[in-house]
């Protein structure tokens, strides 16, 4: 990825950013998040089909550097998260330097080769393979039709269920949750300084990993993503229990699209869905 390293070095040499959040390959060959602080460290940057992480999560987690912008290597889905954070006034466009990557899709298993069929689900319905907000755009886009969106089938199946069947489905899924909160920690839109589960005086959400405690947690997190989730699938990727969390967040995104013609993180100048009220808003789906 010489192009990326060259740009990164140039950024440091001309003081365009204080740090660059990107990916590196570790000595075991894993591609993983990495923060370069100077042009020597920039040599270690890489981008490839295993660059799965949504690095936008670090924008609200890291302390803001005193001496310059935060540079960030970002794929389309990461850009959506950056856009969303700008729309939600969590970061300012001027504080970030976006090194965008044209993206052909990412493969979750580090030992698997890339093919457009074995990319993550999100890549199969991606609309931002060429990012729409950046300072630099790198990488080559391959021309291919997106393969079949494999999540759709399960979504349809859930749709066809009775409420009781659906409850049972989620009960068996959430029953596995161990409350590691990895889903929250990787989510670029779970940036609350104090998450609702940390409100402990009194405890708002039960900390127990029981059916009741797990439902409270998993549902509240899903609700907090209503019309906000930008579909990076990070929560689902990291869940040690493989709970299909994005079925909920994606579904709510689809409702936001259908009812309000709104998709979060697509345009930094658009007011957020949750933050605006219009008398012409569609209400007939509220029963």
């Amino acid at each position, binding site marked *: 990825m010489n192009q990326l390293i060259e740009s990164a070095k140039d950024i440091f040499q001309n003081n365009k950013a204080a740090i660059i959040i990107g990916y590196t390959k570790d000595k075991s060959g894993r591609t993983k998040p990495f*923060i370069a602080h100077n042009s020597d460290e920039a040599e270690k940057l890489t981008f490839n089909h295993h660059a799965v992480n949504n690095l936008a999560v670090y924008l609200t987690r890291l302390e803001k550097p005193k001496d310059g912008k935060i540079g960030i290597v970002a794929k389309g889905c990461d850009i959506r998260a950056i856009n969303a954070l700008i729309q939600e006034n969590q970061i300012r466009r001027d504080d970030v330097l976006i090194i965008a990557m044209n993206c052909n899709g990412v493969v979750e298993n580090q030992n698997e080769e890339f093919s457009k069929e074995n990319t993550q689900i999100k890549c199969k319905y991606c609309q931002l393979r060429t990012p729409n907000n950046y300072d630099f755009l790198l990488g080559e886009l391959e021309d291919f039709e997106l393969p079949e969106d494999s999540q759709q089938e399960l979504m349809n199946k859930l749709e066809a269920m009775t409420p009781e069947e659906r409850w049972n489905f989620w009960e068996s899924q959430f029953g596995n949750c161990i409350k590691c909160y*990895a889903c929250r920690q990787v989510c670029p839109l779970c940036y609350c300084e104090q998450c609702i589960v940390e409100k402990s005086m009194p405890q708002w959400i039960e900390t*127990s990993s029981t059916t009741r405690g797990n439902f409270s947690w998993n549902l509240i997190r899903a609700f907090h993503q209503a019309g906000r989730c930008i579909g990076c699938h990070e929560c689902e*990727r990291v869940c040690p*229990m493989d709970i299909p969390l994005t079925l909920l967040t994606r579904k709510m995104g689809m409702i936001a699209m259908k009812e309000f013609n709104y998709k979060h993180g697509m345009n930094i100048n658009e007011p957020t869905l949750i933050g605006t009220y219009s008398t012409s808003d569609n209400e007939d789906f509220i029963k």
Partner: protein
Amino acid sequence: MKSFIVTRSQINSLAAELLSKNWSIFTQSEDRKRFKQCESESEISVDGNGKPSDVSFKELFFPKSETLFYFNRDNEELTLLDPAEPGTKTVIFGAKPCDAASVPVLSKVFNWDYNDEFFNKRVENTIVISIACSYSDESCFCTSVGLSPFSEIGSDLFLIPTEKDSFILKIVSEKGEKFINEFPFMIQKEFEGTFDLENQKASFPKEKFDFASVKEWLGKNFKDEIWNEVGELCLGCAQCAYVCPTCHCFDIVDENCGVSCGRRVKNWDSCQFGLFTKHASGHNPREDQSRRYRQRVNHKFNYYKQRFDEILCTGCGRCTRGCPVSIDIAQVLEKIQCKQSAAIV
């Protein structure tokens, strides 16, 4: 203690008999996510070649949520009620040496200044049948923490695959001996040869760091830039702690079950959460992730050794495999060892 030759079908018969006597049986699930309860003997997995489950079997001894007691207030009268006694008789089939070794390590802390009867009862009621391990990947490091793919520590019985569907069954603990004596068909053919462990060593994962040097460095270097390097990337979830076979922190809370009744419950907790050390005043002595990660490493490779003479880690590599940002704890320790070596010369 003695060893015997057993076949896969004998192991299945053992499982079938246990099930018919209402024992609970656990084994690794097919997708190697976790240990699951078996309903039929055909489900049991004794596979030395398989990956360690993503989540360890710790929850069988130390459940993610455990009721300590129930309380009920009727007018002015308060009554307390014990939960059901923990631990039906249980056998775990096909644990890895890096699973089994966690049980005695955990026992130390759960019997420190207080004997945790819930934990102890479960250990007492459980037979761990482990299997020698022929798997290893870039995340494994059992050999760096004094264990190996053939460690019998924490097992009651130990299987070594010999040829197809045939195993050496070693009796490791007295509990294991008493157990297996109840099943005479398992101890008919005594193994009289010697098993050559030396021969196997070439295929063990190679040692990644020297524990003694790591511990020494940790004891002397509380403040160091390495914690910022890792802390900057670590997201502070508890994936690593919750999949770990040895992490054992918990939080005790009261929860309501109705208007006038409730329960006191012990839930998993982790030093990787900010809330873990947050004082009521709002002050947090471990205010950022670098301090929390430092605590994790010190607890495992320094403090626990000091206090209990055990390493709080079995080298199973689960935390690394599952980390959302692929932080490799063995690589961190390797770096620490380099720092220690550099300090010596």
